[in-house]
């Protein structure tokens, strides 16, 4: 089975975000594989171990993303592809990323593509479905279970807390939700082997893409932190007075009723 994983490098979940000059400060921050993409890597490895084949992890990013690709290789992926867009593009959006990935994948023999449900930074959840659309293959989002039998695929997906069972077939793209699996830690022998696994680096040119082909369809107007939460208040006094005061505050201060 030819398995492809779409992977993004994101801020470590423990990092504190700060904004300066309209940009999120990346200085000194720790970066990780987007946690949902980690489920995708793990699932791809398990499916490969069960059905044979090869796992290729792909990312669109800069030199910096090599570390996350190496981590996926250390977990057990076979090959990695880094599409380095740093020199060609100042910025991009979901359209940009999906377009580049589609271009790369369109002449590959693809059985199953796995992506994260969302990236924890942008949080759009669009890249996976857009790639499937571009390739003209079906997709299922937020999966929590997958079984492949020949070309038949049975999937359980998370629907806002409920489960939905779906039958479909390869080729297919899925996006992975928490609960699908427990991603493994890269083992030390895995880390040693990852050094020697192939990591191909491409630029837009290599994919016959021009800057204009992938230009963002959206514009970021402003980036700002959520307003700081004000301290809570404990109302005191007679219960009926408290209720009155609360209703008054909801009307006059919070303006929600």
């Amino acid at each position, binding site marked *: 089975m030819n398995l492809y994983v779409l992977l993004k490098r994101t801020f470590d979940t423990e990092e504190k975000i700060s904004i300066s000059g309209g940009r999120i400060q990346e*200085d000194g921050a720790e970066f990780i594989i987007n946690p949902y993409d980690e489920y995708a890597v793990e699932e791809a490895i398990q499916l490969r171990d069960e059905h044979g084949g090869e796992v290729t992890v792909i990312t669109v990013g800069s030199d910096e993303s090599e570390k996350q690709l190496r981590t996926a290789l250390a977990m057990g992926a076979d090959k990695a592809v880094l599409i380095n867009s740093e020199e060609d593009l100042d910025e991009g959006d979901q359209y940009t990323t999906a377009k580049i990935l589609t271009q790369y994948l369109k002449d590959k023999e693809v059985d199953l593509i796995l992506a994260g449900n969302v990236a924890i930074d942008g949080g759009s959840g669009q890249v996976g479905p857009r790639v499937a659309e571009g390739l003209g293959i079906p997709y299922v989002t937020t999966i929590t279970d997958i079984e492949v039998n020949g070309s038949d695929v049975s999937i359980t997906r998370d629907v806002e807390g409920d489960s939905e069972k779906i039958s479909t077939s390869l080729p297919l793209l899925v996006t992975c939700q928490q609960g699908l699996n427990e991603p493994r830690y890269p*083992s030390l022998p895995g880390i040693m082997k990852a050094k020697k696994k192939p990591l191909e680096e491409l630029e837009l040119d290599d994919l016959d893409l021009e800057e204009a082909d992938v230009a963002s369809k959206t514009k970021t107007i402003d980036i700002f932190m959520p307003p700081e939460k004000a301290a809570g208040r404990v109302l005191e006094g007679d219960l009926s007075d408290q209720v009155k005061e609360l209703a008054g505050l909801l009307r006059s201060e919070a303006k929600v009723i």
Partner: protein
Amino acid sequence: MAAKGGSFLIEEVEANAIFTPEDFSDEQKMIAKTTEEYVMGSVMPEVPYLEKHEFDRSVKLLQEAGELGLLAADVPEEYGGLNLDKVSSALIAEKMAVAGGFSISHGAHVGIGSLPIVLFGNEKQKETYLPDLADGTRFAAYALTEPGSGSDALGAKTTARLNEAGTHYVLNGEKQWITNSAFADVFTVYAKIDGEQFSAFIVEKGYPGVSTGAEEEKMGIKSSSTRTLILSDAEVPVENLLGEAGRGHVIAFNILNIGRYKLGVGTVGSAKRALDISLKYAAERKQFKTSIANFNLIKEKFGTMSSKLYAAESAIYRTVGYFEERMSALSEEEQKDGKAIAASIAEYAIECSLGKFFGSEVLDYIVDEGVQIHGGYGFMEEYEIARMYRDSRINRIFEGTNEINRLLVPGTFVKKAFKGELPLFEKAKELQGELMTLMPEEPGGELLAQEKMLVKNAKKIALLAAGLAVQKYGKGLEAEQEVLANIADLVNLVYAMESAVLRTEKAIAVSGEEKNKQKVLYTQIFCQEAFNEIEVHAKETLVAIESGDSLRMMMSVLRKLGRHTPINVIAKKREAADRLNESLKYVV
């Protein structure tokens, strides 16, 4: 070639000549991360059970560590190991330390448990044991201490006697406080053949006459198993003699050096954890309607804790770098020869002892302040800092007490000098000649100029004190334990100050001043406070050694060497703490 052990005291060292944590490779960072994830994800949830001596869980966790390769770092590839570089191996020890008593189980297995066979086993012994120890099929322990012999390891009473058939040694005695003894399969045991020849043996738990006593109730590291190993006419096959008969001390002392070295590395990991949880607690804890992290006395604590940690981390990884440099320079053949490896380790016996006592004392200081920052909650066992406080205490005792390790430092220097390995006496003489014409210096205005001057003068002060002590006491110096300990402290502070300065300098050369502000603050704070301590130790030492006119003269020399305009550490600590309070973790 890597620097000679102890040479830092008499030579000027360049920033580029030392290894620093900024030099970790991506792969080394990945190994550290796997260890960290394993500890946080798999071990920490089990700690409450491990603390109650549920050692079946320790075994499962160690097996999982085996699957991840975390037991195989120091085992050669041909015996199922990974033969990792020494930096990776140190990072595993550092990250593992967060797991408290469990890290002692891990460390005892991979370190003092497995290494005697790795370094001193013959082909057959290595083949028999190492693959199982590297993958977690079997676990190892180390049995040296006895009720009557602790620091005096060679005073062991356990005996070994060859049986009449000449097939087995029959061992009798008791080995005390043996880590991992609840589940270990293989013990390195020291015993005296015919009550005389101190030797090491590989003893399996299944051999007739081998048993363990009751589980000890300890003050800390409760997550590790500690029992007595009882040898009662224990039958050990003759082929399980490790190394040569009567040469057990060579194994014991070399393994102790490694144990000290690894202990130092571990204290860095624990100290980081204690600082991190204290930062988070202080940010959350509100009194007088503000986070206690905003109070200047709490900031003072964070400033001191972090600068000490930075110095210890810099010094200990500098030593790690020396090991790595020396080991990777060994030929393939030498790498298979335990004696060549042991010689590389022995070369840095001084640095190993410094890392051991300095690391454990910095950690003890940090967990103590950590409890203080937690206030009453820090006294409650549901807070991690309480366990860390208890767990920390043993570090100043095992692997050679800090007192023994202090005594070893000047002792080893003098030995190296007599053997002609270090021109210590020549340098001391040179310095004494220089002293008459000594003029106090003014540091230049550039960054770290003052700190570099303090390091330079600290070296002179240490050398002066050591030189005078050797001159005055000669062979009797051994009995002057207070003076020896003071000299060890002087030497340690020199190594730590210099390591911090060089690390910061190296980092600035790579990524500029702006990105290394925090490192500069730590370095300035630590150097100032260390130098204050140096003056106290030196004064006490000179007063003990000299008297009359010569004392007055030496005191004036000390004043000249000590002359400097102190920096405002209060302001520097506030600044360092502000950055820590922002990131809520130890940052450099």
